[in-house]
């Protein structure tokens, strides 16, 4: 009897430690990555990194100013495509969508969210790059934009659904049309949530490499327009990490650190916005 008891107790202790250890492992991965990036790339994240073009092969120094601007331009394009389509679809789903059709749209959005990014890249290659006959910023922005759509759709829908129905009723009872009620009451009430959804979608695609390799391609210099290939941080990391030079590797680590810092910053900002919003509306 006491043997059984001891056995049970020891099983309990083993399982508890196992789950605890795995939890620790899970949360420590982020800190491990962060530490590793700082260790290898920290010293290269300096002023030059942000303002200089990549140094020619054989020269040391240089930066990734073109890739940072490039990523920003690509994200801007992604936002121009993803935000209107995503937010309006989210509004449709939350406010107008019927049961069956709404279910289909929602399901499609979830499937689109699950499409591997490389497949999105091929898609953008087929519909933008091939007709234009060259790689371009537009194609890269299009690929990233497509990826932001499902995330924006679902987050917009969720935050709109969280707006209590009595606010819609109040607006309608004052003579607002349905669209006016959405525009003047429902959307403002959900705006902080929708904004954070958009930011998270952008943070998510900011690190995407695969859809950019054969759309935006990459560019060691400044890109002269929206029609030209353009550098971006993830593709830069990919190219530099595969390069044969030690200082390229260092630069790749530095770029990784900058990218991760950006994503973390966006995540923390959204948390702050949401927590502030909740304290205001109780």
């Amino acid at each position, binding site marked *: 009897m006491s043997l059984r008891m001891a056995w049970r107790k020891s099983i309990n202790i083993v399982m508890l430690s196992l789950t605890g250890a795995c939890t620790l492992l899970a949360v420590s991965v982020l800190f491990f990555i962060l530490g590793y990036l700082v260790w290898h790339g920290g010293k290269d994240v300096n002023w030059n990194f942000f303002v200089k073009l990549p140094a020619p092969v054989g020269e040391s120094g240089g930066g990734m100013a073109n890739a940072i601007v490039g990523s920003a331009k690509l994200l801007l394009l992604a936002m121009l495509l993803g935000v209107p389509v995503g937010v309006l679809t989210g509004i449709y789903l939350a406010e107008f969508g019927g049961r069956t059709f709404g279910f289909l749209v929602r399901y499609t959005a979830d499937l689109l969210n699950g499409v591997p990014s490389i497949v999105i890249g091929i898609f953008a290659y087929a519909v933008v790059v091939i007709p234009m006959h060259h790689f371009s910023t537009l194609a890269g922005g299009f690929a990233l934009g497509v990826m932001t759509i499902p995330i924006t759709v679902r987050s917009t829908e969720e935050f709109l659904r969280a707006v*209590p129905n*009595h*606010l*819609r*009723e*109040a*607006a*309608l*009872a*004052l*003579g*607002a*049309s349905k669209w*006016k009620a959405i525009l*003047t*009451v429902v959307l*403002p*009430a959900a705006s902080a949530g929708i904004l954070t959804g958009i930011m998270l979608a952008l943070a998510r695609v900011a690190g995407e490499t695969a859809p950019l390799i054969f759309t935006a391609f990459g560019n060691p210099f400044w890109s002269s327009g929206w029609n030209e290939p353009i550098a971006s941080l993830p593709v830069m990391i990919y190219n530099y990490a595969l390069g044969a030079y030690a200082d390229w590797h260092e630069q790749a680590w530095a770029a990784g650190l900058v990218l991760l810092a950006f994503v973390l910053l966006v995540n923390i900002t959204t948390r702050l916005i949401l927590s502030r919003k909740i304290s*205001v*509306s*109780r």
Partner: protein
Amino acid sequence: MASVSPVNGINEPTNEARTLPRRFAVSSNASSLQNLSQRFKISALKVFYGAKQVLQGIDLDIPANVVTAVIGPSGCGKSTLLRTLNRMHETIRHARMEGTILLDGEDILGLDVVRLRRRVGMVFQRPNPFPKSIFENVAYGLRINGYSGKLSESVEHSLRRAALWDEVKDQLHKSAYALSGGQQQRLCIARALAVDPEVLLLDEPCSALDPVTTAKIEELLFQLKPTCTIVIVTHNMQQAARTSDFSAFLLEGRLVEYQPTAKLFTNPSDPRTEAYITGRFG
């Protein structure tokens, strides 16, 4: 039962009527329905939610510039009746009405719904201010209707009519959520009054409020009576007796009795009414 004072037409509340401790203090006694001009003429009103019929054919005339109370047990259709008066039932999926409702002689189904809801305002069970400032809440109805006059004057006027001005005049730009429940409900009344409706529908406006606040809102109804027709749905029979001139008793979607309030509460002609007001059911 004391203080049943027959006065012609619109009744001024006497202090006596509201301070005497009685089971049912009756505010006034408009002696006859026929002598008054009718604001609403409801005939053969049936309302269905999908296959379920909620109102079984209601005929009811609601006089102008008096308070009409609709009482009855839960689920008798009194809120549904109220909602059909400004077609708010249309916001509920699968709701449909038959019969006619005339507002000042015009069929409300023939009116533009936005115009109708401007003329027939509504206050809901739970205070539902918008997550905007106090000022913006009151100004909302004016803004969406393209009001061209001075907003601030109109907002002040409405807040005064809702007896809230003195409490909020120094904090008009604070969030409406900073107000207490009773203040929020009066804000909702001010918001409804801002578009200068002919009729104010109140759906159990005090059920979420404490007695002191309730008294304030009842007081307010007396003050609004000369300028506004009021229809109030209430669970609280003392409230119906205190505030209304006419009372309609609904049971299972049918109008059982419709009388001057004093008569309905002191000498009901239907045994079911008597059973309900004496608390034998409901």
